[in-house]
């Protein structure tokens, strides 16, 4: 038997070059397709630094906002959540009520079991079991762990089962032809048919609720993306199409309109939701941990997922209405949850419980471009009777947040806002026309306990508020990851003002400034990072980044920026 560890230790015989000098002098991104440096970058930097140095109003420095108080997860029905957990040295299948109670072990086999999947009537569970020969095979059992039946055989990996919505078939992944492909079989294991045929790996099939399509992940274009195909394997479409990030674990919402998935486009795996055609992508978790394996609640109001945010990999429930996340179980190592289908439950506040709506901040602009003024409000909703002091901020019993827009046309839009994850939010809430097309965008500061000064931009349409997409590295034109990428998650504690500049030719640029103390005193010296962006469609494309040191010679303390006028020049 070949000792692999010994084989890999031979790599130590390779003499590694010293690449640190090269890394220090290297301009990041020089390998990738680049775009000429923006000619206005130097002028922009001078302008922004001057603006910051002269016109600074003090932004009262607050400590990190208090952590949001948890609220109940989505009102659970009688459904259970199946999952795999590491117990007594092996991975076995368990189930638990959606409120975290009544945990039960369903399998007690000598090998590892993963990937439970409920039949649409909620009575059976398909799962993957590793056999004595090392290969995984698909089995089914009833919801209590009895009546075991094996569906696949052979010297290949058969795993990741997903039941069709009518219960007649099961999609799964098999390596029988040399690499992972999506297959489908009848629910009794007969008529196993290959749906995908590609030299790369196709994984994680997920049926659309109407049974017509199957979403899956594939690295056929070099990195993992979410694809969708007809249920017969034809008409394959790449829904995410990102060159620089991985997208995986698709899960179709029960109403068929949305797909939850995982992406690491912002640095670490988070749960995202997009429309079923790949549009309107929004991030629904925001945590430094790895969030994966989303599965929808039957009523579509919540998503259960696995995350290592508590140290070990456990299961959490995200309430999409309020953005709150609660731990489902305290099982130390758990993965791959699946929510039992069931009758949708009524959600909302319990009868008799008062709810207080506090308008924290308002702004006005022309979001739909019809020439009339639209009014936007950021509303915090608290359970019970609380006062709306302190500019409407709710410090206790915060249950959810909303954006309300009253359009000049008479239409009203009221939408839950989950990007703040239940934390304090919207210190900046401003309308601005980033691209000069006559339609304002909405800037919202997503300050949270984890990061201060994040401003993200949203497009406001009569049917919804959607985050603008920051272009990915590698997207044309090339975006170089820099220290002040908008919404990128820097956490040094100094505010990042956003300045909008209108150039002489009428073009508009968005400039993000981030000051970093690189000295040993509060007075500095400071390094000022700037990032210049333009809006192209729904994408904010970074055109240049720059650094300048010691830019606050007159400053004796932490440089501060204006809360009320983040858009210093022209775009407001």
């Amino acid at each position: 038997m070949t000792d692999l560890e010994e084989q890999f230790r031979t790599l130590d015989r390779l003499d590694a070059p010293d690449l640190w000098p090269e890394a220090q002098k290297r301009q990041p991104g020089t390998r990738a397709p680049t775009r000429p440096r923006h000619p206005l970058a130097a002028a922009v930097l001078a302008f922004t630094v001057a603006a910051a140095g002269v016109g600074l109003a003090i932004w009262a420095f607050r400590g990190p906002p208090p952590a949001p108080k948890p609220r109940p997860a989505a009102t659970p029905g009688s459904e259970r959540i199946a999952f795999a957990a590491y117990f007594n040295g092996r991975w076995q299948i368990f189930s638990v009520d959606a409120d975290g109670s009544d945990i039960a072990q369903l399998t007690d086999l000598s090998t590892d079991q993963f990937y439970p999947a409920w039949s649409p009537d909620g009575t059976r569970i398909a799962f993957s079991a590793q056999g004595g020969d090392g290969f995984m095979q698909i089995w089914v059992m009833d919801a209590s762990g009895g009546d075991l039946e094996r569906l696949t055989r052979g010297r290949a990996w058969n795993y990741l089962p997903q039941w069709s919505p009518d219960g007649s078939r099961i999609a799964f992944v098999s390596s029988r032809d040399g690499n992972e492909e999506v297959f489908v079989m009848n629910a009794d294991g007969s008529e196993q048919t290959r749906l995908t045929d590609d030299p790369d790996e196709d994984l994680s099939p997920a049926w659309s609720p109407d049974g017509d399509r199957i979403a899956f992940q594939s690295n056929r274009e070099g990195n993992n993306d979410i694809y969708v195909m007809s249920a017969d394997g034809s008409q394959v479409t790449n829904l995410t199409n990102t060159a620089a990030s991985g997208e995986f674990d698709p899960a179709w919402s029960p109403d068929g309109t949305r797909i939850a998935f995982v992406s690491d486009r912002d640095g670490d795996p988070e749960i995202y939701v997009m429309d079923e055609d790949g549009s309107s992508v929004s991030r629904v978790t925001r945590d430094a941990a790895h969030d994966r394996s989303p599965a929808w609640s039957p009523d579509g109001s919540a998503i259960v997922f696995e995350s290592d945010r508590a140290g070990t990999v456990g299961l959490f429930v995200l309430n999409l209405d309020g953005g709150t996340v609660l731990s489902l179980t305290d099982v130390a190592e758990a993965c791959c949850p699946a929510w039992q289908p069931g009758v949708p439950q009524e959600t909302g506040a319990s009868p008799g419980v008062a709810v207080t709506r506090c308008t924290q901040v308002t702004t006005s602009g022309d979001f739909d471009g019809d020439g009339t003024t639209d009014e936007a409000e950021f509303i915090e909703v608290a359970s019970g009777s609380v006062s709306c002091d302190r500019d409407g901020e709710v410090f206790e019993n915060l249950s959810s947040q909303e954006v309300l827009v009253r359009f000049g046309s008479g239409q009203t839009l009221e939408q839950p806002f989950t990007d703040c994850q239940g934390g304090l939010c919207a210190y900046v809430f401003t309308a601005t026309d980033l691209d000069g097309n006559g339609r304002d965008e909405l800037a919202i500061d997503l300050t949270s306990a984890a990061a201060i000064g994040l401003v993200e931009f949203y497009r406001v349409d009569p049917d919804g508020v959607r985050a603008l997409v920051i272009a990915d590295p590698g997207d044309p034109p090339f975006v170089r990851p820099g220290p002040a990428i908008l919404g990128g998650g820097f956490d040094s504690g100094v505010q990042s003002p956003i300045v909008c500049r209108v150039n002489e030719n009428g073009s508009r640029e968005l400039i993000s400034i981030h000051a970093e103390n690189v000295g040993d005193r509060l007075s500095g010296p400071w390094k000022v990072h700037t990032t210049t962006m333009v809006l192209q469609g729904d994408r904010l494309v970074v055109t240049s980044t720059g650094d300048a040191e010691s830019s606050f010679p007159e400053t004796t303390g932490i440089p501060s920026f204006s809360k009320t006028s983040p858009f210093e020049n022209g775009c407001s």
Partner: protein
Amino acid sequence: MVQDALVTAGGLEQLYRDDGARLWRALVAFSGDRELASDAVAEAFAQAIGRGSHLRDPQRWVWRAAFRIAAGELKDRGRFRPPLADPGYEMDQPPAGLVAGLSRLSPNQRAALVLHYYVGYATKEIAGIIGSSPATVRVHLSQGRKRLRRILEEQDD
């Protein structure tokens, strides 16, 4: 914050001193190409320097970035370049057989095996680097291990 900035400035160089050679060798095993490995390491650290104190976990970020850069470059070239194509690679060195064997695995299997057996990462950490889930990494590891053993044993025959 002042402390953070100071720690970060020297911290990345220390990270390079601690991890740079290991990362480079892991990338040689992953790509079969010393030049590509050098480029990916230098680029990943250059990007980390550019991000300064904003990286939450510089070590994890650098490993992930370097493997992504290398994987992207391999894709652009149209697959794994066998060691013979690299004039700087001395084929009589023992890792040559291993690298040749790895070249016959899928990129994810290759990355999982290198990160597990050479670097010692657990499945969760590997998942973070290659952008997959721990459960899937376990599958890549199990499958890749079996295939690599068979390939290496064939080489010995």
